[in-house]
Structures are given as structure tokens and as C-alpha cells.
């Protein structure tokens, strides 16, 4: 029965102390958090860490829940921001700034003959600057509209459109490179 309650109501209930509502809410959204984490970082282990951190901080965050935005929009923002934080901490520790980069290096080391779809994705994502990657993860991965992605990232719809056209340009350039190789 709880599963049919809208996210927004669950969140309000959870924010006012309903433990069961909170449990239902995180259970319902864990996979979504994990998947976006993976799309943002390109690394399963990192995505799991990220999801766990977010889950643990969620009660804290819910106090700020004011129900002005859709719950999922709010949650996406939480995930994107948490991924940014993780990236920044990684950068501070002077480690590779992001998972996609690591994977790209590993991929080039292996430079295996099998160019599976996964490899192509790694290469494509690694070539995109972080901002474009976030945008792609939301627009293509989560299938948000450009307006929704704009809400999540705090940017105008125009900027999202501009970024997507930038992605298209870069993908095309990549395809041209591949054709040459």
C-alpha cells in the first residue's frame, strides 16, 4: 500500500518522523540512486559508495525537504552534488579526478581487440568534460527533459540544449576519429 503513495507524500511523512515511510522511500529509490551514480562516475564500486553515503545522509537532508520540487528532481540534485563532492575530494587528495578517467587509462593500457559497447561508452564519456558528462547522464541516462535536467543542475534550459549540442559535436568528432583509425 505504501508503494503506491507518491514520493512527495512519503518524503513529507518521513520528514515528520514516520519511519516506515522513510524505509519505503529509500527502498524504492536505491536503484535509481545507484544507477545515476554509475552514470556519473562510470565505476560500480564508486557508485555503491556514493549510494551508501547518500542513503546515510538522506534523513539529514530530508529536513530540508520543502516539497517545492518533485522528489525525484530533488533526489537527482542530491546525487549530482554528492558526485561532485566526491570528485572534489578525490581531486584534493591528488588522485585522478574521476572514475571515467581511470577507466579510460585502464582501457588504453589493455587496448584490447574487443571494442564492445561498454568500451565505447568509456571512451566516449572519458572524452567529455565533467559538465557535459553530468548533463548526458541526466538527459540520456535518466531520460530527463532538458528543462528537468536544468532544474537538477541549476542551469537554464538553454544551457542544457547548448551542452547537448556540444556533446553531439564531440561525438561526431570521435566517430570521425574512429573511422580514420
Amino acid at each position, binding site marked *: 500500500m505504501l508503494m503506491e503513495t507518491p514520493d512527495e507524500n512519503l518524503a513529507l511523512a518521513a520528514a515528520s518522523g514516520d*519511519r516506515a515511510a522513510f524505509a519505503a522511500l529509500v527502498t524504492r529509490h536505491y536503484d535509481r540512486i545507484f544507477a545515476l551514480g554509475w552514470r556519473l562516475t562510470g565505476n560500480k564500486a564508486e557508485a555503491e559508495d556514493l549510494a551508501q*553515503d547518500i542513503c546515510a545522509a538522506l534523513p539529514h537532508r530530508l529536513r*530540508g525537504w520543502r516539497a517545492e520540487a518533485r522528489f525525484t528532481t530533488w533526489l537527482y540534485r542530491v546525487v549530482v552534488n554528492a558526485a561532485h563532492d566526491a570528485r572534489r*575530494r578525490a581531486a584534493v587528495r591528488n588522485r585522478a579526478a574521476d572514475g571515467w578517467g581511470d577507466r579510460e587509462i585502464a582501457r588504453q593500457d589493455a587496448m584490447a581487440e574487443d571494442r564492445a559497447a561498454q568500451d565505447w561508452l568509456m571512451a566516449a564519456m572519458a572524452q567529455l568534460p565533467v559538465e557535459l558528462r553530468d548533463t548526458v547522464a541526466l538527459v540520456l541516462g535518466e531520460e530527463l527533459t532538458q528543462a528537468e535536467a536544468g532544474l537538477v543542475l541549476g542551469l*537554464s534550459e538553454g544551457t542544457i540544449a547548448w551542452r547537448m549540442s*556540444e556533446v553531439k559535436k564531440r561525438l*561526431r568528432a570521435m566517430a570521425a576519429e574512429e573511422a580514420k583509425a
Partner: protein
Amino acid sequence: MTRDPDFEKLKAALKAAPASDPAAKVAALARAMDAYEDSALSGQGSNDPPRSTADRQPKAGFASGVRKMLNALKLKPVLAATTSAAALAVGLIVFLPQSEAPPERLAAPTPVAPAPAAAPEPAPEAIMTRKATPAEVAAPQDGVADLAMEAPVVEPSLSGLPAPDQRALPPESAEQFANADANPVQVTRDAPVSTFSVDVDTASYAFVRDSLMGGYLPDPEAVRVEEMLNYFPFAYPAPDVGEAPFRPTVTVMPTPWNAGTRLVHIALQGRLPEIEARPPLNLVFLIDTSGSMDDPNKLPLLKQSLALMLGELRPADQVAIVAYAGSAGEVLPPTPASERATILAALNRLDAGGSTAGAEGLTLAYRLAESMTAAGEVSRILLATDGDFNVGIDDPEGLEAFVARKRSTGVYLSVLGFGRGTLDDAVMQSLAQNGNGTAAYIDTLQEARKVLVDQLTGVLFPIADDVKIQVEWNPAQVAEYRLIGYETRALRREDFNNDAVDAGDIGAGHAVTALYEVTAPGSPALLHDPLRYGAVVADAMADAAATGAIAEDAPELGFLRLRYKAPRETVSALIEVPIVAGTEVTQDARFATAIAGFGQLLRGSVYLGDWGWDQAIDLAEANRGEDRFGYRIEAVNLMRLAQSLAR
């Protein structure tokens, strides 16, 4: 757009996210429930024994470390700790620009840049706009970084205020300064004409201050005497209505560091801003959000600074924001300044990350600024950066050329520098000079207030472009001369009348100060021996004096010529003033001399003899004047600090 075949491929690959690991999911959900129990949300609270956090992998690092610590502290100490976070935040209110933030800001959950422990915005804002409990303060509503809030609790020394001993040595840095060797003493007979461009930048003084406050003497290359002089407000006589946009005043006075020479103090005072009648202003904030800006002295200070300035704008003014890092983006389309909440929200959304693509951002900013400009309006790009233009331009000269080309469109470019370490002062200077703008370095919120609030009209409203100064010295009165400072602003003699040659601009209310040290013929202080065969010329001069070609009663030391263009004009106008001794020496002129001495001491000038810190301090102290905002007493204290550091 999503029909694009490339997008389809990428989308399919992204859609194939791996399934979540059931064990990880169970662990995460368990942690979520634990956290829920511990949080104030749960009705029951928690009196349970501390739960193990051992299921976390150790590699989780800092985040889980902090959490473990907080978990170990358990409820009561945590509450005490958050209370101290609130107290900390209260202490910060004084500096906050958003004290009048309209309530809408609270309503919209805006992501705030969580530079660790550095962004003081969220908490105090909560405190000011409503009575927040300490627990609420500790919970950023935007759901960003609980860590950002917790860090000061865990270790207050992380809060971006380094202990003095940590900064005793100049930090390793990639800073590059623009400077040239100090101007040498010139022999009037060989080179009677001295030409330079005005400079209204102040960046150098702020560098010097930041270095001294950090406990080390500044790199002599970072010291530009003219910029130190420009830092101070002087009350030079302003032009009358209907006159040229600025008025020159020349004072001749004894040199404090050399009894055998005199100082010629040239002051230009720009017309004071007509605050009521100023034209509408279009501002494009071009903000560097690259990873290197993630520092308390950079992005957070930048946001506060720009927010301060917002209060000075009029409803007719427009603001747009472009961020650049990795890829450039328009963060805020042109918005009337009256929509303060919208602009503040956009500012607060900025977040550091990625590398710098300055060129792309600049192109976008110019495009926006050009689109905003209507007839009679002033458009300016304010580039805020730490100068780390390392990605995206392989060719800084190309960038400067671009800025110089854009100058003709009437869009001005000013540069605000933030933070130390990567600041490429040379590029900053060059961009601002080519963009007809000013370069200022902002190290504190007070400095931001000075540059962006007190002097807003001067920074933003040009009254005279391409202002050049030329002095022709009279060899009968001046045998040798030396221009103090302006090394990077020297112009060739023939450039003075060439309107195609760019020079510095003067903004509304700006004052420009230049000092020459001059030596009379026959003075024991002359550094050059007279030429054995030069007497013929000297005799001719004496003849000219005798026949009245050069008046004897008020002998001219030289002749000052100024060229300037009215904004957006292409033809320059000329102002001419003779340089004569005998005018009253003001306190302002004496204080300027003390600052020139300060700058030369820092540069290790060879012309000061045994005149040193004590004398400079006395001179500055004695000529503080009214000093309403304490800039001059601050300088005196900096001199004292430098004196101690120089020992």
C-alpha cells in the same frame, strides 16, 4: 535531438547500467535506517547502544572517517558540536552580503557550492532569516554536503584561516608577475621627453598586503609603485562642469630621500561620478569555476563580493552570468538588476570543478554583452578568476589579440583576481590593459567592498579612454629625471600623438598619480657627469633664458601634455599644463610620496640612499589626513610589518 544516432548509441550504453549489488543495497538501506534513527526526524530519538560502522569498507576515506567520529560521539556531544557550528556561523554574519536576502531564497532549495568548510553562506543565512535551531543549521537544506557543514566542528583549523606559522614561508607558487626593471635616471639633454600611459589598476597593492599579512616580503617583481599609489583615495581638485573629464594638478616639492633633488607630483582627478544621472549598465560576470577556484579565498569570496556589488546596481541595469570550466555555460541570461533573488540564486549555484577554458568563456561573454548593449548604455565584462588559464588557450597572445579586437565594439573588460598560488598576474594585466579595463586583486571582503561598492562608478564607468601622459623637461631647470613606477606602461615618444596606440582609461572619479624625481643642473646629486663637449648646448639654453624665451620669474621645469579620448571616440584631445614650482604642497602629495617610498623600499631601489622604513613610516603617519576608511593607517601598519620582516 535524442533521435540522433550518436545519442541513441550513447543512450543505449548508459541505459545498460549494471544491476545494483544486493548486498551493497542491504547495507546501504541499513545505514539509512540507522541514520534515520539517529536523526532528529525520528520521533523516538535513539538510546540504543552505538551501532557498528564496521560494515563500511575502509577505503571510504574522509567521509566515513568524519561520520565514524560523529557516530562515536553520539547524540549529546554532536548536539554540542552543532551548537558551536551555529556559534561560528553567528560570528560570520558581519561579513555577509546577503543580509537582506528576500525570503524567496530560502524557499527555493538552491545548491550551494560546498567548498569544504569554506562556504559560510548557508548557515548564517538560515540564522538571519528565521530563528533556526542549531540542528537546522547543521542541516543544509539543499542537500549538498553535510561534510561542508561538519568540517568546522571536527577541526576548526580547517576553516580557511591558516594559523600564522603555517604561512611564514612564501608558498610555492606558479604566479607570474608583470614588471620591468625600475626606470633609470635619464639625462634631460639626451632624452628630454618622457611618455607613458596612465594606469588605474590597484592589484599590486593588494598583492603586497596579502604577502605581508602572510608573513613574508612580496616578490619585488610583484610591486608596481603606480598601482600602490592608485590604491588610495586622494582628494585632488576635480574638474569643473564643462571642462575636460579630468583635471591635472602639478606640485613640485623636496624629495624626502635626497636633499639634492625635487619631486614632481602629477595628479589627475577624474570627474566625480554623477551618481544620479549615470547611464544604465550591462554587466556580464564571467566567472571562473575551474577546480582551482575551490578555495575559501576564491569562489566563495567571489560570490560574496559580487553579491555586495549587486546592492549598488539600479533596476535599469542588467546582469548576466557566464561560468567557464571545462565547457562554458550561460548560468544566468541577461536579467534586470531588480531581480536580486534570481541573480543571487544563480550566483550561489556556481560550483568549482573542471579545468579552465577561458577563451571559450570569453567569447560567450562578449557575445552576451554585445547583445545587451543598447544606445547610450555601458557594457562591461567582469572577469573573475584566479588566473589559471591553463587549458583551452594554447596561445595567450591570441587571447589578448581577441580582447584587443573586441575593444572596438565598446565592451570593456575588467579583471578581478582572486586567491594566490596560480595567479597569472601577467595575463590578468594584459587582458585588462587590452580590454580597456582595470585589474584589481581581491583578497578580502573589505577589499571587495572598496573595489566594487565604494568605487563602483569608477570601476564601471569610463570617462576618458587612452589617456597618455607626456612630459618634456626643460634642460635649463632639470638636468636629470626619473619616473617612479609605470615601468610596464612606458610608451614611445611618437606614440603620444598616434591615436591608434592604446593606453589606459580613467573611470569616473578615478585619481591617477605619477611622481618624477628631478635634479637641477649643477646639483651635487647629479648622477651623470657633464659632457665635455656639451657646453655649447648649455650656453644656448642660457641665452634663451636670458632673452626671455623661458621666463625667469616662474621658471618652467617642464611641460606636461595629456592626450585622451572621450569614451568611444577615435580622435584624441590635448591638455597642456606647464610644470612650475611654488604651488602649495598638500598632505595628499606628501602621503603619495611616502607610498612611493614604500614601493621603492620593497623593490630594493638604489635611489633611496639611507632613507629607510623609519622615515617612510613617519612620513606616511604624519600625512594620514582624514583617512575616513582607514586605508592610510593600514598602509602605515603594513610598512611596520615590512620593516620587521625585512630585518
